[in-house]
């Protein structure tokens, strides 16, 4: 299971970075999403897989006895998923707005900030 997950994580990182390098902004967002999943799985795996032993203190005892699944990586991932959801939702809205304003989804066309905006462009 560990090996399988490691391979999946590696693939997700590769695909994520590949998509990030594409020129289309839609593919870029997909790349960011894949990268987010890769990272979450990596945190999960880095906390070691322990199957079938939930970290619940048995009745009548005051502490956990080994072996038990480490709950911290799961808490970390939960936080990361929530944050990732919010940020990616914002990014999706932003690319929609980018497409509306710039009329293109090709990153190569997005170079006008390197030039001066025409006079009056940034007037309120």
């Amino acid at each position, binding site marked *: 299971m560990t090996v399988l997950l490691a391979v999946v994580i590696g693939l997700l990182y590769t695909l*994520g970075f590949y998509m*990030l390098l594409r020129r289309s*902004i839609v593919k*870029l967002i997909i790349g*960011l999403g894949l*990268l*987010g999943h*890769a*990272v979450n799985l*990596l*945190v*999960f*795996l*880095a*906390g*070691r897989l322990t199957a079938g032993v939930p970290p619940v203190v048995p009745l009548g005892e005051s502490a956990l006895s080994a072996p038990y699944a480490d709950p*911290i*990586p799961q808490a*970390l991932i939960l*936080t*990361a998923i929530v*944050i990732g959801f*919010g*940020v*990616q939702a*914002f*990014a999706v809205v*932003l*690319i929609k*707005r*980018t497409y509306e*304003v*710039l009329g293109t989804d090709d990153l190569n066309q*997005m170079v*006008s*900030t*390197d030039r*001066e*905006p025409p*006079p009056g*462009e*940034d007037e*309120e």
Partner: protein
Amino acid sequence: MANLLFLPILIPLLAAIASVLLWQRTRAQRAISVAGAAGLLISALAIAERVILHGPLAVQSGNWPAPFGISLVVDTFSAVMLCMTGLMGLLVAVYRLGEEHHSREVFGYHPLYSFLLMGVAGAFSTGDLFNLYVWFEVMLISSFVLLALGGKRPQIEGAFKYVSINLVSSALFLTGLGLTYGLAGTLNMADLALTLPTLNQPGLVTTLGLLFLVAFGIKAALFPLFFWLPASYHTPPVSVTVIFSALLSKVGVYALVRVFTLLFTSQPEVTQAILTWVAGLTMVTGVLGAVTQHEMRRLLSFHVISQIGYMLLGLALFTPLSLAATLYFLVQHICTKSALFMVSGVVRRQAGSFDLREIGGLYRGAPLLSGLFLLAALSLAGIPPLSGFWAKYALVRAGLEGGNYGIVIVALLVGILTLYSMTKIWAEAFWKKHPKGKEATQLTPAAARSLFGPLVVLVALVVVLGLAAGPLYEVATQAANELLNPQLYIRAVLGGS
């Protein structure tokens, strides 16, 4: 008393909530933004007084003992950065009142501004790596919206580039976090500082350190990861640019200093060599980028990069003097660069453009502005007796004492090029006649008060920090000693011996 450490986070949070509740009343929101930032500054000063006199303070949230709960820790370095957060938060909130773009305020500018300050204050005071990630995200998502708010063409482009690269940086940061947890089983920084050396795997630890270097390097705009900064910083209203350049990239520098003094010190020959090269290249590419620019804010953005190279150099040299220089540089650079960006906003108002080729005649039309610009620009270039000089002097001395002559030469040359581009702004915007013979537009008294008030305070700080560098330098030295001897920090968090 350690509960004081929650205030810099709670006060902006309350301000943000109050602003959300008063959604329709922009006037009340403005007052709340100013009051929230003032509260942050006061609480930060109170913390700084205790920390400087009595050593690092720590508090465990929820009273869960470290390393199980989330610790907040403030040492001298964090305390100074917190004070700068409060100061800049207040000054920019006041400067904002004099700006033109009031239509943005109905779309949540003020709550986001307070959330941004909360994120920055949280990042400066946390003692837990994962918590640092969370504060980074709080800060980033507020900055995303502040940058995109208004939705003009250049702004959308700038925001898009800024958002994408920062999401990659966050993913890398989280990768580093996951692997660190897998290796050490803890993410509390003080606990990590004790655990990492006992693992006997210096190679792996250094690799992790480099992963963090890339993640924080993107946020701090280091070579070769800085391209997002000049592509986005010149697009939003000036007040947003000022707060970004004053605080956001500095959080990246702070995080680098924190992890490379506390955690990843096992193979200094590798990390310091990389940091030195990166620092040198950041300085040079930043200043060379600035030379070709004609748009005032883009030119200044490139100088932000170049100056961050200097701060990193202090970390790379890794002596008490150089680390003190880094802190001194951070403080004086926040004042200097914010003053320069604020000047650019007033120049735009009075001469009609940010483009140096289209403006002029401000020396005659706006003598006070010219004087303020001149002082800040000379400080940026490192001319004595202004604050920038002492920062560079300490760095150069630290470099010479360590025998790093090459990097010292680079630092001095970059200083000359900085002076060159400041002269360019001076000659174009202030000395030459306006190309269309236009007189400088006069500001209304109310706008002039809120635009010039913060500007005068910042330039006064630049001068005072230069003429009386002693007190801040002593604080910076104390901070450097704390960074190089992390036992105090660790004891404050974990207790015991």
